[in-house]
């Protein structure tokens, strides 16, 4: 309780509250603009947060992360264009409702479900934190190595149909992390005699190139377009209250969101699928799913908004980011010499609680904002796409150049921007590169320290959590192969699959 109060005090400073307000409102606007996601905004703002206190910088980034999905549901429902990738499932039921003249109801349900999902997940984590504080110290070097390996395996397997490409990109990320002077034997690795590679390839440069510049180049090189507006009339707050008719589904969405968010490499898509399937199987009108079902909409939005809070768990408790956005936040910790990991939950619980309270506050701020401003947001998002590309490149410059005022960094970022553009056009994922880069470094360090007392390979798994993680990795690989074979046997015609499910990443 004392930690909770101390965490609350930590937040009650003007700088933190201002950062929270800017992050929350900025996140909604950024999330609502198709073509800019939370990843682009966080990548651009990262270097600017390095000069701030860790709690101020992280609050701003968390504000963007937690609120972008609220914004992303707006164009998903009104114009069938998801603002962020995780709002793609929202279009399935949200847009048909708009076509039936139920835009206000659909938006209200989406916002209400997002709010319930966000708040319930944070409350669950606040109550779970004392347990996590006891479990986290049981993670030694071996367990952290295996958890990072699990993250890599999951992020590869999550890209079915492109598993080989995702594997290659994850290995490329691990490779990028090894370039430069290594700290044990002090030898150069893959520097090819080039001085600028001796200090390694900076994660922020790669992130800015792959997420921000690539999106800018993509929008600039494509034909111009601008989302059309659609007005919403009526009392949004009353529409939001409609979510209480679907308490069971919103609760399930929060539960799945928390569980899936905590597992590295899994995230929103799995949480959404599990909740959506649960809602459909237990519905009295399962045939309406995909044709404007309120339950389907609540399932999708409650699950995705429950993930950000839970995704902070592996980051804070183990120092392992589960996806790209938390990987970016890890660099804020490193810059301030705060090492997230088991010790953080034991010695700085107030800091952890402060982040959770910040997330509760951001949900309250955002729900008030979206309740009042849906029509205003629809006007803002009508920016022509090529002009938007120009703004992203201009902002991308600040991010890269302010790091070290280095022209080489900018050239590298531009190179990664072109690589990101190609990957996006190919519908190939970027996240495995970032996770490979971050988790590869963690695996190298932890394997080295973890092997100190290991005599035979089996000794590596002689502790319960290590054994559990080892079994989980093996089971996942077996389940993946089994799933692929089973899908092949079912022989569903290719035309019946939704080929554009992930197309939102190119917008």
């Amino acid at each position, binding site marked *: 309780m004392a930690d909770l109060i101390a965490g609350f005090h930590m937040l009650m400073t003007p700088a933190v509250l201002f950062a929270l307000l800017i992050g929350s409102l900025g996140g909604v606007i950024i999330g609502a603009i198709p073509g800019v996601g939370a990843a682009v905004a966080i990548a651009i703002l990262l270097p600017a947060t390095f000069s701030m206190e860790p709690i101020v910088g992280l609050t701003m980034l968390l504000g963007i992360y937690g609120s972008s999905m609220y914004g992303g549901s707006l164009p998903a429902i009104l114009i069938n264009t998801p603002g962020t990738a995780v709002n793609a499932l929202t279009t399935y039921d949200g847009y048909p409702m708009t076509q039936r003249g139920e835009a206000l109801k659909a938006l209200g349900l989406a916002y209400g479900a997002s709010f319930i999902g966000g708040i319930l997940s944070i409350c669950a984590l606040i109550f779970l934190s004392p347990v996590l504080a006891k479990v986290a110290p049981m993670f030694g070097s071996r367990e952290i190595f295996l958890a990072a390996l699990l993250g890599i395996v999951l992020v590869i397997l999550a890209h079915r149909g492109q598993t080989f490409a995702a594997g290659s990109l994850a290995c490329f990320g691990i490779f990028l992390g090894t370039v430069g002077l290594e700290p044990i034997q002090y030898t150069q690795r893959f520097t090819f005699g080039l001085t600028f590679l001796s200090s390694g390839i900076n994660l922020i440069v790669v992130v800015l190139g792959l997420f921000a510049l690539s999106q800018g180049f993509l929008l600039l090189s494509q034909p111009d377009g601008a989302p059309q507006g659609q007005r919403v009339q009526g009392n949004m707050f009353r529409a939001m209250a409609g979510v209480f008719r679907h308490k069971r589904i919103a609760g399930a969405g929060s539960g799945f969101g928390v569980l899936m968010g905590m597992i590295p490499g899994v995230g929103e898509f799995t949480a959404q699928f599990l909740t959506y399937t649960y809602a459909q199987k237990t519905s009295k009108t399962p045939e309406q799913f995909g044709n404007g079902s309120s339950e389907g909409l609540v399932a999708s939005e409650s699950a995705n908004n429950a993930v950000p809070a839970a995704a902070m768990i592996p980051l804070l408790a183990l120092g392992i980011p589960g996806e790209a956005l938390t990987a970016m936040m890890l660099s804020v910790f490193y810059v301030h010499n705060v090492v997230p990991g088991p010790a953080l939950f034991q010695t700085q619980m107030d800091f952890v609680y402060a982040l959770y309270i910040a997330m509760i506050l951001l949900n309250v701020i955002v729900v008030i904002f979206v309740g009042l401003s849906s029509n205003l947001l629809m006007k803002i998002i009508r920016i022509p796409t090529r002009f938007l590309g120009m703004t992203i490149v201009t902002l991308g410059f600040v991010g890269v150049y*302010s790091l070290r005022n280095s022209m080489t960094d900018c050239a590298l970022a531009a190179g990664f921007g072109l690589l990101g553009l190609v990957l996006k056009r190919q519908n190939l994922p970027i996240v495995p590169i970032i996770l490979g880069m971050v988790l590869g470094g963690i695996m190298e360090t932890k394997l080295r320290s973890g092997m100190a007392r290991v005599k035979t390979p089996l000794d590596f798994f002689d502790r319960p959590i290590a054994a559990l993680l080892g079994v989980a990795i093996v089971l996942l690989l077996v389940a993946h192969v089994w799933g692929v074979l089973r899908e092949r046997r*079912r022989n569903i015609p290719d035309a*019946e699959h939704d080929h554009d499910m992930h197309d939102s990443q190119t917008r």
Partner: protein
Amino acid sequence: MKTFQDLFKRYRRPGDFFIALLSLLFALFLLVNLPGQAQWMDRAKTVAQPALWPGIAVIGMVVFSALHLLGAIVSDRIPGRMAEVLEWLRAVEYAGWFMAYVWLVPYLGYLPATLVFCIALTLRLGYRGWRWMLVASVFAIAVVVIFKGFLQVRIPAGAIYEWLPSGPFRTFMMSYL
């Protein structure tokens, strides 16, 4: 959405074969250079070997890229490969614009370079008329004021500012714009 896989599955696009081939060639280039670019020390343990993790990464890239290429070869050909590659090349122009902006900033200073970049690129993109010029200018000024003036990000003053008469205006320009 018909199956669980739909939520995760990404489908091939034109140019898949080309990207798979490039990826394999790059991985092979790294593999050939592995012995010379990462050392295997005589008296160090395997887990402390400098070449261990680059080796794991590069071999992983070779294996996965080869399987990716194999998948592309045995799959039906999707028309439009050449057009897709030309699309990639078209984007190089904008990387050039970005690098020109990077080159300009140390000479012109952050505010003038950003104004020049935003207005010139807006014109290049085909937006005409005073309204677009105004929007681009306001955006450029807002970015500089927020990031350099307010957030104090580290961007050095332009060489051209040295030409300004010494006094509070020059100091202000050098510190905030």
